[in-house]
């Protein structure tokens, strides 16, 4: 880097660190017009009564200030059990796995969320590496702003050591570019990547996404994964998983907010439908759809002013989530080319909930599970 370029970076860092104003330096990785075109395209799907046609894919559910605020409200709703329990129990679960994270780690957080969890992670990492770089990644710049502020305020992390990246990390090409960026910035120093809050469950191709995300890790890196889990799989339990989401009014507002902000539909919260099913031997799946129950056909205007028919009983899939079978977690992790370093589990403490729903926090490292005595390298070098 030339001296003038270095001076520019130094000056910028000093200006950010020295100002009272809450500057944040955001790296935008994609043309947002393309994202809008993709959202519009997803809403042009064929009619389906089961949420398999039109859809709002993960990421767009949080895209824009309206959905971001709705998300923040939903997280504060005590009836949105997955989020509440996840936030409440995260401190304990993180405390149980954090000692496996050594000194000198940087932090890359995929899907920053409310920032509460990143704050705990950062607090621990900062003690061992005061010059760490924090890179939250999200498709929504508004989510980045909200989460990053919560994650960093009062921690003593200097402003120029926070580098939010606006990027759709579900796209493989984006991840490849992101990997190059991170590796150039941190060099050989280790990175703790995280995907928290059951975000993995929101993607159609979740296994592929996890494999893509973990493929950017190097031997010295770690990956922190949080998922909602169930002890067993059955249609009855899928129904109970649906109930868990159905009872939160704020959650309904959140899942419909993207639709409200990107179409001219008049939203009725009682038109939100939840469908539970068993996904093979790996998860309970909950699909949240918006169904036209007005008694007649509608025409919906999209962001590009195109009009798309929305016939009676047609649906728009708003959200997808899962509860992974705990027995399938090792397989999911192994298929992504990772192995468990540590895992903690937290049951949902609800009186009427006796079906083993909970949250698992997994600390993963690259590489398959070593067979004892089969790998002298690990026997010699691992603690």
């Amino acid at each position, binding site marked *: 880097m030339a001296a003038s370029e270095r001076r520019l970076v130094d000056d910028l860092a000093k200006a950010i660190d020295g100002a009272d104003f809450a500057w944040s330096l955001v790296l935008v990785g994609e043309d947002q017009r393309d994202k809008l075109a993709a959202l519009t395209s997803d809403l042009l799907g064929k009619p389906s009564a089961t949420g398999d046609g039109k859809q709002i894919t993960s990421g767009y559910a949080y895209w824009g200030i309206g959905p971001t605020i709705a998300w923040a409200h939903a997280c504060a709703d005590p009836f949105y059990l997955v989020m509440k329990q996840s936030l409440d129990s995260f401190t304990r679960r993180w405390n149980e796995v954090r000692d*496996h*994270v*050594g*000194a*000198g780690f940087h932090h890359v957080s995929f899907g920053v969320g409310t920032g509460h969890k990143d704050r705990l992670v950062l607090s621990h990492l900062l003690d*061992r590496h005061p010059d760490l770089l924090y890179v939250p990644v999200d498709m929504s710049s508004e989510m980045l702003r909200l989460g990053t502020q919560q994650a960093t305020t009062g921690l003593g992390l200097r402003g120029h050591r926070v580098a939010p990246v606006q990027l759709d990390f579900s796209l493989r090409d984006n991840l490849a570019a992101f990997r190059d960026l991170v590796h150039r910035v941190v*060099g*050989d120093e*280790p990175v703790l990547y995280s995907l928290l809050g059951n975000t993995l469950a929101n993607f159609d191709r979740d296994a592929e996404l996890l494999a893509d995300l973990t493929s950017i890790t*190097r*031997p*010295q*890196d*770690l990956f922190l994964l949080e998922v909602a889990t169930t002890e067993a799989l059955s249609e009855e339990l899928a129904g109970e998983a649906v109930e868990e989401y159905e009872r939160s009014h704020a959650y309904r507002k959140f899942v419909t907010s993207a639709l409200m902000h990107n179409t001219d539909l008049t939203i009725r919260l009682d038109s939100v439908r939840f469908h539970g099913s068993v996904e093979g031997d790996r998860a309970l799946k909950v699909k949240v759809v918006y169904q036209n129950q007005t008694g007649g056909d509608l025409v919906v205007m999209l962001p590009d002013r195109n009009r798309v028919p929305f016939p009676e009983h047609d649906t728009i899939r708003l959200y997808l989530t899962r509860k992974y079978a705990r027995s399938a977690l090792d397989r999911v992790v192994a298929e992504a080319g990772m192995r468990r*370093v540590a895992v903690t589990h937290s049951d949902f403490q609800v009186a009427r909930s006796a079906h083993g729903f909970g949250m698992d926090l997994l600390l993963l*490292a*690259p*590489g398959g599970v070593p067979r004892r005595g089969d*790998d*002298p*390298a*690990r026997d*010699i*070098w*691992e*603690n």
Partner: protein
Amino acid sequence: MTRIAITVLTFGALAVATALGVAWFAVSPPGGRWEPAVNSLALLAGITGIFAERWATQREQRKQAIESIRLEMARNRETLDGEAFRPSAPPGRRVYPRLIQSAVDSAFASGALTPRRDAELIDLLHRWRSAVSSVNRRLELTEMLVFTSASTESAERFHEALHGAGSFMRDVRSLLDETQTYLDSRTSD
């Protein structure tokens, strides 16, 4: 035994001479007190001088020992940051540089560090010494297994294990950080 006898004899003689000097000062006429006064002060200076010299020597030894340890730690840091221990280094057969501990051994052998004053440092250095021995032994095993293996895959596996998140080297680096930070904080001592 001889050393104790000589010490007792020396300090006994000095104490008796000082007592006699004081008595001499007391019984001397007012005009003749200069000589016993000078004699008593000279004896007192001799006694305190022995302790002062011992204290200064010990302090100098400790300072030199800590400075040597500091330099040794910096050297070990260079080794760990060097090409051989970089995760980005190409995996392959190589002879790794070893960590050194001669200054730490020397400090322990010379008794320059005292448990009363340096308890924390001594504990850190004992842990560091044990870690260095362990690393060097593991490096020997690694080299032996990599050089006797026909496949290049073996070297790659060792490279991965050496730089992995659960590698023993991470603890060694943390301990080196801790020791260097402690030594830096004691610079003013």
